[in-house]
């Protein structure tokens, strides 16, 4: 499903990813862990197509189609979703309006029929309930005056509504207390599906107590330096990232 081969990414003259290779088959959840500055967020942004993240070599394909060269919105329409580490507030655009615009833009790009307002409201009301979100919050400007936990729930709500093929969760646990973490993790677990790949990027093992990955990869020095089963996360928690320092 997601296949990354020898990816090199440059940000402001500096090469951050230096030949990263990674495969995430459909239906699996993979964790990418690594020390600060290893290039975890760069991987997330490069896959989403953030301007300024220049792919200088290698490929990243989703269902065999190369994502590199597509605009961020075209990637989204192909099914790429990024849950931001720091979600952006957009004053003046109610969350409901934003999400419905996004959903219909994706559908339009895929040649599907748009959702009607009643269909949309019914669906989002149900999902917001699962995430224990106050529905009135969705009438306010997107993420405006939201707490850290509310913003992360908003990200997961968007993921649920947009039903991506590939969900990339960038440090979704940062800034969450234990209750919020559990709710967010339940949302992620409920979104596991046979036709969906998920990439969970995290510094700490904590999130993986709630979201059990099929595979764990260690990213250091711009490459995947080790891969293993879920037990690798526990090992990292115990031993730390020091032994990968030479890779950086």
């Amino acid at each position, binding site marked *: 499903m997601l296949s990354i081969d020898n990816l090199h990414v440059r940000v402001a003259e500096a090469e951050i990813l230096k030949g990263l290779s990674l495969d995430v088959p459909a239906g699996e959840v993979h964790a990418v862990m690594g020390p600060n500055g290893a290039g975890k967020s760069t991987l997330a942004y490069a896959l*989403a*197509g*953030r*301007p300024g993240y220049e792919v200088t070599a290698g490929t990243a394909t989703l269902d065999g189609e190369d994502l590199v060269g597509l*605009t*961020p*919105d075209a*990637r*989204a*329409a192909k099914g*790429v*979703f*990024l849950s*931001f580490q720091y*979600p*952006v*507030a*957009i*004053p*003046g*655009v109610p969350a409901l309006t*934003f*999400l419905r*615009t*996004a*959903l219909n*833009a*994706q559908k339009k*790009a895929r040649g599907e029929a748009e959702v009607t307002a009643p269909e949309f409201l019914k669906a989002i009301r149900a999902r917001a309930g699962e995430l224990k979100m106050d529905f009135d919050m969705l009438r306010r*400007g997107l993420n405006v005056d939201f707490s850290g936990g509310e913003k992360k729930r908003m990200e997961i709500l*968007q993921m649920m509504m*947009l039903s991506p093929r590939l969900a990339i969760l960038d440090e979704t646990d940062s800034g969450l207390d234990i209750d919020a973490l559990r709710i967010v993790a339940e949302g992620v677990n409920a979104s596991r599906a046979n036709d969906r790949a998920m990439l969970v990027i995290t510094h700490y093992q904590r999130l993986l107590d709630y979201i059990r990955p099929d595979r764990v990869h260690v990213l250091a020095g711009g490459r995947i330096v080790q891969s293993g089963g879920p037990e690798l996360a526990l090992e990292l928690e115990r031993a730390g990232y020091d032994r990968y320092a030479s890779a950086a």
Partner: protein
Amino acid sequence: MSQGLATSDLAELPSRRDEDWRWTDLRGLVRQPLPGSAPLGDAVRAGGPFESLGLSEIVLANGHLNWWPEGEGSDGVDVTVHDAPTAPHLSAAMPMARLAANGAGDPRALILTFKGAGSPGALVRLVSRASDSAHHARVGVMVEPGVDALLCESYEGQGSGYLANTLIEIFVARDARLERLVIADDDATAVSVSSAEVHLAPGATFSQTILTSGAKRQRFETRVSHPGGGAAVRLDGLYLIAGRRHGDITTVVVHEGPDGTTDQLTKGVATDQGRGVFQGRIEVAPGADRTDAKMGHHALVLSDHAEVDAKPELEIYADDVACTHGNTVGALDEEALFYARQRGIPEAEARAMLTQAFVGTVIERIEHEGGREIFRALVAERTASLA
């Protein structure tokens, strides 16, 4: 009303040497006299951006009275035509207003009087259907004590190379309210100036929102003499400037007595080679104690060749005054743009959405619901074309 621009008038045009006009130079731009614009043969009825509100309609076309409900208008509006009086009270700082008041041509002025119960409203359409000619118009607006009135004003440019010059004089009596909504759609080749002099009685409320997309050179100027005494002013504006257009929103509020409020919010967007100008001055005269005034101007510059010039000024000579101002000029938030695109919204649509959200706060302050809807729809349309 008057017509034309004589050779002797050219020297009266404000230039960059006039501090208040340094960004909107007319003398350097208009170098030849212009003939007066001809009156139109037919009445220009039913049209313009405010048509759906169904207000009493007054049309001035090429500076000439074109259509008006004579005598008692509907909904508590009297419309009368007077021989234009001279205007010694007009501020020397408003050269274009003096030109409109004193110029030759149609010697009549039109006066609207809002009176009676209910919420009277009127629509004044200033239509320019002229080419390479000049016209002036003058309108007086009186709001009688206790009346709650709506004045909609549309500037409809349907010609090219015209110079349109309008003077609006507004008097709001004690405990009366007036909301003035202005939508300007001048031609890209036009020169257009609209000057408003607003006189308030204590206890009066005056609210204003201007939406403009500029012209070759265009200015909306509003001067308010504010008596305090519980009088309240809201003075908002929105400029959306593209192409090579120029739009200037200038305001001066003079607080002359204690206990008055002014709340001002202007937002603007400039793209292509467009130029937006905001000049706002609030003066608090000696004795105008406990004045509460705030002024905000915030602009987006969407292209390298677009420009926004801003001059917010507070001059305070009284005590126990709360005056604040904020001024920002910047680009669209790239973080927010990427966020929206990551969710699947194409770039042009995302830019339009963010731009519309940026300016939307001005529209939400419009009190008249129908008017607010008209602004909202028009701004959505215009911001989509800016992105």
